[in-house]
């Protein structure tokens, strides 16, 4: 099983345990999707959001509050939690009743689980730059 397939399997199992969660999207800092749990068309462009997050997170890290770890958006029909794991971006998309506290708790575990994939993507970025 490839690292990406393993990541998708893991995220799928994680998604089942979080109330209000619709999908988890894993992308690189340019918004290129690597894995996602839901193939449903939601009115959320997770690819564009991932690209915006990369820049926003970098800027937020200049607020004299240390490195940015996540950004959460509360929208009319969705709650979107984005977590930094540079160069990866993990985006959790949920309904308005998404348990954001639970998502915050699982983020460190997700980072841990995706560490090998993160290192691989980082290697590729360094090699191609």
């Amino acid at each position, binding site marked *: 099983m490839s690292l990406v397939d393993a990541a998708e399997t893991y995220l799928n199992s994680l998604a089942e345990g979080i109330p209000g969660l619709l999908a988890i999207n894993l992308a690189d800092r340019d918004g290129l999707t690597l894995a996602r749990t839901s193939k449903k068309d939601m009115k*959320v*462009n997770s690819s*564009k*959001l991932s690209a*915006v997050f990369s*820049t*926003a997170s970098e*800027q*937020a*890290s*200049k*607020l*004299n*509050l*240390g*490195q*940015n*770890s*996540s*950004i*959460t*958006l*509360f*929208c*009319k*029909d969705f709650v*979107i939690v984005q977590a930094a794991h540079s160069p990866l971006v993990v985006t959790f998309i949920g309904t308005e009743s998404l348990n*954001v506290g639970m998502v*915050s708790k699982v983020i460190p575990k997700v980072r841990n689980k995706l560490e090998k994939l993160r290192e691989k993507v980082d290697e590729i970025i360094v090699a191609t730059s």
Partner: protein
Amino acid sequence: MEEPKAFVNWQAVQKILEKENTKGVSSTLLFNDKGALLTSAGDVSHEQIISAIMANIWKSYTEVQSNIHFMLVDCEEGILGVSSIGRFRLCMHSKNYDFPPGLLKAKVERIVAKLDKSLSSVF
């Protein structure tokens, strides 16, 4: 330049911001959509940087996602909450990374509710 349609009692606005600056809250800032600071309460050591950066982050996100009413930015050493009131942006921040995000959101939303009618009619 667009002329404002109403005057704002900035002293009264500042009093509202100061009232929510309870224990754990470092500062509350009100700025326009371009990041220009209008008024603030609390620790103002980095207010210009915060207002400029947060205005930009809000703008970037609203270009790709509609109907955002609140944004939470979580950093290693603090947390920020931002909302919009018409063409203005309200940002509350705490230098305590443990500050409850739900409380931050509730405080920002309370200020927005108080200022919405007066500030939304300015432009």
